[in-house]
């Protein structure tokens, strides 16, 4: 994010991106924001996650950008969709593309490690490098 002063100490920058900021952007613009942040070594947190189609494109673009000794890809975590019984109903009510969007954390694969994950808690370890 341009408005943040660049951290010259060796801290870890976290960008929390509001749903409002992402609203109205194209899939590719969202993916660019995420990958630019992650490639700078930042942890990106999305208030509202991506649609399945955007997730699919994010994986695809990530793959094309991986480069040995430079970028290993991403770690991404979000809460799982609740079981189909309620989730499916809600999904159907709201239409396919707007399945409940969930808080999502994305970071550089070599800096973030998921320690624990269940329906209600994601615990991750972030290292400086």
């Amino acid at each position, binding site marked *: 994010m341009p408005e943040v002063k660049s951290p010259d100490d060796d801290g870890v920058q976290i960008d929390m991106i509001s749903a409002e900021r992402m609203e109205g952007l194209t899939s590719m613009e969202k993916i660019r924001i995420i990958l630019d942040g992650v490639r700078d070594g930042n942890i990106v947190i999305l208030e509202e996650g991506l649609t399945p*189609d955007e997730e699919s494109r994010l994986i695809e673009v990530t793959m094309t950008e991986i480069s040995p000794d430079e970028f290993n*890809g991403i770690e991404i975590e979000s809460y799982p969709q609740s079981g189909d019984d309620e989730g499916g109903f809600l999904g159907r009510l709201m239409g396919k593309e707007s399945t409940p969007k969930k808080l999502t954390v994305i970071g550089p*694969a070599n800096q973030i490690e998921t320690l624990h994950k269940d329906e209600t808690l994601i615990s991750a370890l972030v290292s400086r490098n």
Partner: protein
Amino acid sequence: MGLLTELRDSISRAAATLFSEQDPKRIGIYGPPNAGKTTLANRIARDWTGDAVGPESHIPHETRRARRKENVEIERDGGTVEIDIVDTPGVTTKVDYTEFLEHDMEKDDAVRRSREATEGVAEAMHWLREDVDGVIYVLDSTEDPFTQVNTMLIGIIESQDLPVLILANKIDLEDSSIQRIRNAYPQHETIPLSALEGDNMDEVYDKIAEYFG
């Protein structure tokens, strides 16, 4: 005018049945690296066509290009179901070439393998959005099924309304847990099997015919 429309309609109807008979459904075999996708694809291909699809290996990212086996005719209950099977590279969000070095690989080879792997995964994602009519999702039942990649991929498949069959592979191994997979994806049917030993393949073929026939 009316005649012409009628003619056009009947031609397109004929074309539709023609194509639906000629074009077998394209079934993508997806899943994380090392789950046994190629072992399964080879078993299906060998059982029904006599030859294999591609090499299997304990080193992840053995498959780095989607490979298609066309016109696989599976016989069930007197009828046949014809499908194309597409064995895809294991999907992941990260590839670190240094992990291949642990498998006694030279750096050059490891870097090449990782580059091919990333291209292959990108291609597999593209296929999933554009070119498959159904999915067989293979999981190693000795591993935790509840990973972000699995959840995302199954979400992507669901959002495209593709029929999906989840296979719990490697049930010949002691740590195998089918229930863990059923719990993680209760909205789908999970079929246990050992692609390596050929256990429970009859049920797998029954379900393939049921889902993709």
